[in-house]
């Protein structure tokens, strides 16, 4: 039964009409994703009405390709303008922008494209082969387990603090505090809203992200002026396709990051943003040259890009197998399925198997299409880079204003974006890192709600986190990850090493920066 659907899906997807839909979705998605603040979710939400008149399989193929392309589009802006087009591309900024600044914008974009292809094809393959089986595993992730995943995510803050760990922790703490704004999940009490209805739903982190990353950059460009040559928005002069040697070097990193992306995508409520930071952190942990991260290191681009495209397939797995969306974008996609008269859930694999497998194949084809379109289209970005600083700066501001408004059609959000822009400027002047703030802002609400839910389920006892095997293991990993960043862990390592010489090498490996 499943085999025949597999073939029917494939023959559906290679229909010229459907391939055209994938091409159109890829082009539009890349364009929308490249604009600051226009996220993949919004790209899908915008295009959804257009698919009403299309055949279900054509419409879904278009939406899937749009989603994937928006993920890559986000990194174009991240690399060239230091302005992540989508939240999932925020981690790409850290190494992508410095690499572009050093005259290797093409290489940075090429790495991003190649990593996206590997991550995307991996997740598409996972989707096609194990979707019917994986549904059950996802069900094991309730509030208790998700809380543990979020705690693990918080430990990423430690490693994102380039420079001072204290300043990084402070930035992360501010992010967590800002995440507390809005209605309390269990009591409905508004917290820190000062009576503003607009703050009842909390701070939309996409809005904050646009302000934090793009406004300081725009101000920097305008302040610098056109007089000095040198730092403009980076040009794509060099070749994009990585050399064979570079390609081989990025394979292990891409595979690991792709696997992280699929895994994170599987967990409901976490999406490309979480996955890309997670992968970035792991790439740094595994790297032999940690100090290169943040200065334009290839691995720092490959990791988040492979992960955020792999999320797509991962997130589609629970959506398709169980009708449980794994991310906000797949939630919108699920809405698309319902519009076409298909009820989500296990019946998608039986009653609507032909349409479902067309969608799964479309994900695979869209990844390849994205690679081709990306190679051609990305060069067109050079047009943006020839514009003088004093034009680019204001254009970034205008795009940020439009982007922050368009997320919730809210004028209030424009003010919020500008406020975060000022915070970003202040952080830059005091050399406080901004990424930990973003992590705090993204994970804060997840931690908050899952902690309260877990405690309600556990009757108020914290023991529930240790009685549950999945969360216990994840929390222990998180604890180790925090410990390994402290001098304390290094001394334990040395102590054990002195007693049992043979134990030392594995400790050095597992214990990240224990050798500082």
């Amino acid at each position, binding site marked *: 039964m499943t085999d025949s659907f597999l073939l029917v899906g494939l023959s559906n997807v290679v229909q010229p009409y459907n391939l055209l839909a994938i091409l159109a979705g890829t082009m539009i998605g890349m*364009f*929308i994703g490249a*604009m600051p603040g*226009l996220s993949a979710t*919004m790209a*899908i*939400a*915008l295009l*959804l*009405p257009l698919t*009403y008149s299309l055949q279900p399989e054509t419409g879904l193929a278009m939406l899937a390709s749009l989603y994937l392309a928006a993920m890559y589009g986000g990194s174009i802006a991240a690399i060239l303008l230091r302005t992540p087009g989508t939240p999932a591309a925020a981690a790409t900024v850290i190494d992508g922008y410095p690499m572009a600044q050093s005259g290797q914008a093409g290489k940075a974009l090429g790495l991003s494209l190649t990593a996206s292809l590997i991550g995307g094809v991996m997740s598409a393959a996972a989707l096609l082969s194990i979707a019917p089986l994986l549904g059950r595993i996802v*069900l*094991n*992730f*309730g*509030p*208790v387990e998700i809380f543990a995943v979020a705690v693990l995510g918080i430990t990423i803050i430690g490693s994102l603090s380039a420079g001072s760990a204290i300043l990084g922790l402070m930035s992360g703490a501010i992010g967590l505090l800002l995440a507390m704004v809005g*209605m*309390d*999940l*269990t*009591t*409905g*009490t*508004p917290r820190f*809203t000062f*009576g503003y*209805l*607009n703050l*009842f*739903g909390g701070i939309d982190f996409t809005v904050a992200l646009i302000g934090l990353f793009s406004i300081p950059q725009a101000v920097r460009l305008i302040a610098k002026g056109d007089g000095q040559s040198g730092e403009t928005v980076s040009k794509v002069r060099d070749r994009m396709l990585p050399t064979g040697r570079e390609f081989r070097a990025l394979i292990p990193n891409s595979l690991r990051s792709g696997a992280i992306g699929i895994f994170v995508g599987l967990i*409901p409520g976490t999406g490309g943003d979480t996955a890309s930071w997670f992968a970035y952190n792991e790439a740094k942990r595994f790297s032999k040259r940690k100090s290169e991260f943040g200065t334009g290191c290839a691995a720092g681009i490959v990791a988040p890009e492979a992960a955020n495209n792999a999320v797509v397939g991962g997130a589609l797995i629970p959506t398709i197998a*169980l*009708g*449980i*969306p794994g991310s906000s974008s797949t*939630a*919108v996609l699920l*809405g698309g399925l*319902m*519009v076409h*008269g298909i*009820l*989500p*859930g*296990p*019946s998608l694999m039986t009653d609507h198997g032909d349409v479902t497998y067309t969608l799964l194949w479309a994900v695979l084809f869209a990844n390849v299409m994205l690679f081709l379109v990306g190679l051609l289209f990305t060069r067109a970005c050079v047009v943006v880079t020839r514009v003088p600083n004093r034009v680019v700066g204001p*254009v970034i501001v205008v*795009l940020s204003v*439009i982007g922050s*408004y*368009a997320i*919730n*059609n*809210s004028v209030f959000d424009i003010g919020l974006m500008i406020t975060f822009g000022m915070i970003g400027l202040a952080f830059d002047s005091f050399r406080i890192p901004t990424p930990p703030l973003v992590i705090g802002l993204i994970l804060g609400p997840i931690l908050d*709600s899952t902690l309260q*839910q877990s405690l*309600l*389920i556990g*009757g108020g006892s914290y023991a529930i986190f240790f009685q549950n095997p999945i969360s216990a293991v994840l929390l222990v990993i998180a604890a180790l990850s925090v410990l390994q960043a402290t001098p304390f862990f290094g001394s334990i390592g040395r102590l054990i090493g002195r007693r049992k010489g043979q134990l030392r090498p594995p400790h050095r490996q597992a214990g990240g920066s224990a050798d500082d």
Partner: protein
Amino acid sequence: MRLTIAAALAATTTLTGTAGAQDSGYSQTEVEVMQGFKAGGGSDALAQLVQPYLAEELGVNFVNEYIPGATGAIAWTRLAKQAPNDGSTISITNTPMLTTNYIMNPSITYTIDEITPIANIVTDPGIAVVSSDSPFQTFEDFVEAAEAAPGTVTVGNSGVGGDDYFTSLQFEKAAGVQLQKVPFQGDGPSWTAAMGGKIDASFTNVGVTYPQIKDGNLRALAVFAEERLPELPDVPTATELGYELVAGSSRGYSGPGDFPSEDRDAMIAAMQRVMDNPDFQKAAADQALNIDFIPGDEYAAMLKEQEAEYQEIWASIKDEVQAK
């Protein structure tokens, strides 16, 4: 740049339907429909389903405006306080959030006295579900467990202030039991947690769980509807089991206060014709939307009744909930 602005405009408004030529007695040719939620949500599904048919009947263009935030309160505050009352602006109104918003939060200041209810269109009845391997075979099993150990049976809902939360409170009152209510962010996470055995049961809605019930992943214990549902003939209603409980999540349309009564009548008449249209009925059935057409004054009465009921419930439990 031009494309950017075009995209931003497209994000702001979506034109639906076409202006017909026939005279329906409606004073405007273009009507703005505010929604308190993001594009692609349940309110949008209603708008996309109803408005193309309604536009044809009424001879107007509908323009959707999405104003998400504060569970709809931003849009409804605008409807009550700022929207022009000349028939050019209406809003999708979702119950019970329309009333629970201001009952629970003093900083939300609109009330249903400041709006003109036009008609309710759909209702997704409430339902109690458990995992397929749950020890609760019947609703009675569930109630007995709740009676035996007060405050320990965990029951998910879609969030404080939502329909399922108030359904849980009403049930506690009707059955004299104490549940451990666990709020989630939406129906999906709530019934998923029940399906995975993370919580003992979930109070949720039929439309969102029907595929899982049909496939045997969730077991329905009782529906909170007036009568048994045709799609779930074996599931008893709470009322037949002896609990006075009819609840669900409804969506309809309302205008600002002092909405022109001719326009209101014209719109209700047009909606009635849409409801009778077999094409519309089929489209609604395809999307598993349960039509529950309650026109004009009856809708207003339903909102009033809900308001009184929720005010009473909230007054009795407010201190307990918010003191935590």
